[in-house]
């Protein structure tokens, strides 16, 4: 039991169960397949970006710029296509363009952090502001609502649907499956490849990793490269689900995603972030914010409740904090 309590994934799962149960007592509709579908859909964006953020956190860094990177990647791609009336461009090319832009932007972060040895927190706050400002100044400030056809089609691709007790149809979005697949691939990479284990090693102790013969700079390069690719994908997801390209969308809300990663066990002293933990962290936060809306709780209370649950989660995970209570 003690061992299980130390396990972050387990504690977050318990908190999810308890929260769900409490919400269910207040509003029985919440315990339904329809609500599961709606929560998973609401989680798509944060789940995607959380994956990028988690990777950087496990490697011992922090990224405050992933939303800015994703938004720039998506908006630049969409604007280019829309301005040239290339709305028929196949979906995979849209993703490819966004991924390339995402990679370039995250590798700029890598250059400052790894090559110039500057603190990741400050670097990525700076680049967040830079990317956002650059986008607004040079690319455009307008909302684009005539999206490429591929994205419009993707927005309404569902794999399953259910009707709630009140008669509304809820769909399981196709992207939920895509995100789940990304999580599974990431899990395999992190746990069963040398590269994945090296990320954990440099996250725990750079000097020790160097002594072990790990190429720190190359590992970090790949970490930022993958994070950039994921952020690019996340940007396109956001544009798709939003059915509009909004410049500097999401930017400023990075901390909730980071909170999800930390709740799942990443970012502590031990650098033990895990894919399952991050997934659970994202689900927990979506569960709270989504259902408080259903329960007609005012939005400022939502923020307070989210904060309380994050703190409770961290306290439970920290045996040190428990012994002081």
């Amino acid at each position: 039991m003690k061992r299980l309590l130390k396990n972050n994934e387990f504690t977050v799962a318990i908190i999810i169960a308890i929260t769900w149960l409490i919400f269910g007592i207040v509003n029985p509709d919440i315990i339904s397949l329809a609500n599961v579908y709606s929560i998973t859909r609401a989680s798509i964006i944060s789940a995607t970006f959380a994956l990028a953020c988690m990777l950087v956190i496990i490697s011992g860094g922090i990224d405050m710029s992933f939303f800015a990177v994703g938004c720039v990647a998506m908006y630049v791609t969409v604007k280019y296509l829309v301005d040239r009336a290339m709305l028929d461009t196949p979906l995979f090319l849209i993703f490819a363009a966004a991924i390339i832009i995402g990679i370039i932007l995250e590798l700029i972060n890598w250059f400052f952090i790894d090559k110039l040895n500057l603190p990741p927190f400050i670097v990525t706050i700076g680049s967040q502001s830079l990317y956002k400002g650059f986008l607004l100044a040079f690319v455009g400030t307008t909302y684009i609502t005539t999206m490429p056809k591929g994205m419009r089609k993707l927005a309404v691709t569902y794999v399953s649907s259910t009707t709630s007790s009140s008669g509304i149809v809820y769909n399981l979005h196709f992207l939920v499956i895509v995100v789940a697949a990304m999580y599974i691939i990431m899990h395999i990479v992190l746990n069963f490849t040398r590269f994945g284990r090296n990320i954990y090693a440099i996250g725990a102790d750079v000097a020790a990793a160097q002594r072990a013969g790990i190429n720190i700079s190359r590992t970090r390069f790949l970490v930022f490269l993958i994070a950039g690719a994921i952020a690019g994908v996340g940007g396109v997801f956001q544009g798709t689900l939003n059915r509009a390209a909004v410049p500097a969308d999401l930017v400023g809300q990075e901390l909730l995603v980071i909170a999800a990663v930390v709740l799942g066990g990443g970012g502590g002293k031990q650098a033990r972030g895990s894919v399952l933990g991050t997934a659970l962290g994202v689900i927990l936060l979506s569960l709270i914010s989504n259902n408080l809306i259903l329960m007609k709780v005012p939005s400022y209370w939502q923020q307070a409740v989210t904060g309380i649950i994050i703190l409770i989660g961290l306290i439970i995970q920290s045996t040190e904090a428990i012994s002081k209570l």
Partner: protein
Amino acid sequence: MADIVNVKNMYKSFFGVLALDGMNFSIGEGEIRCLIGENGCGKSTLIKIISGFYTFDKGSLYINGKEYKKITPIESMNEGIQVIYQDFSLFPNMTIAENVMMYSSIRSKSQFVNWKNMKNRAQETLDRIKFDIDIDKYVYELNVAEKQMVAICRAIAQDAKLIIMDEPTTALTAKEVENLFKVVSELKSRGVSVLFVSHKLDEVLKISDSFTVMRNGKNVYECKDKKLSKEDLIFYMTGKKISEERFNFIKTDEKPLMQVKNYTLQDKFYDINFSLYKGEILGITGLLGCGRNELAKSLFGIMPATSGNIVINSENIGIIRNVQHALKYNIGYVPEDRITEGLHMEQTIADNSISVIIGSLVGKNGLLDDKKVRKKKQETLSLIPIAGMRPLNPAKSLSGGNQQKLVLAKWLAANPQILVLNSPTVGVDVGAKNEIHNIIKGLAKEGIGIIVISDDIPEIMTLCNRVFIMKDGYIVDERNIAETTMEELEAQIALEDSKAEETA
């Protein structure tokens, strides 16, 4: 017996300063060697050259009979040389199994991780030195001794022929040291050589087959004689005869300076009762985790006690609630960890010297009085001579021993009547240790009451006039140093240790 490493007439300099000055050194198969010398004598330079992290300027390096003009860390590892650093270089977020196999699996160039195979091989390695522990435990859950075993296992897993251990016994209890020595003997019987780099002479004298003493980048003495005395070793290390006289306490005041009554901190220590007299040096010793550390911190208000009271100069002051409260009664505290608790490493030596009394140097306008500050800095730094120091250099430029002197000086500036010293000479070499002991004795003669917390029994023997032994949070024994011997004291602590084992 073939030599694993043979270094001949080696020179190495950094920015014109000679670190190795014609060093000769060799170690054979299955040999347990101890490399000793004071800080800055070139020990770590030698090790870094052998392990491939530094190149050398002149001389020759043979490893397993093969001459290397220069050697990379990977080549050195491939030759079977493994260094276990003081911090062990383990990954706390990984299991024991993964840590043990980490280096081998990186060197195997395999891009995938086979957990089952890895665990099996890790378990085999642990079995080889009879290290009994669950290999799925995370390293952050382990204590220092266990971490060290994991590091040793990692070296064995790579077929190490020579394991170099940097200060291996510093953080271990007596029992753990014994266990380490058992493992080292086991390694020796398998033909693995071990090179200890250590300060703790009493311990290495017990285990090593031979010694190499370094001074100023040279091999000044080498012997295979186990009967070498500690005094001889110190002579070769420092180049001077150091003899320490025991502290002689003369009670000048019948009234105790401080009385500690039923002092208790839940889960840490219980019912601590003692009196401290003016000019006395009181030792508190015991194994790691016996509560000595917590007691020291509670006497300075860092970890306030939960019940009991303290009487200072007949005034009952209750519990020391916080550091400000302790300062009010002129209690000074020298922490165990100078780097994080004792000094502001990036600040200058001069600034550090007045950091305790800075509040009293404020002028009429509420700002610091520059004249007073400068005068006080000079006064403070003249209290304890620190050789070769420049007041405007940062504190981190000082050696461990000199840093400790600076910590002492900064407390002296505040005119303390009681000084709590927590492991005052940890990580300090013999010469500086001796100087610090003499300073502490001098302070006691001036009438300061001093409490020394230490697990260094020889230190307790030369420094204190009385000693308490703590166990599980209680004071279990009190001895007058004049009426006991080192062997008796060690036996007493070991006895408490074995009792603890029985009840556990």
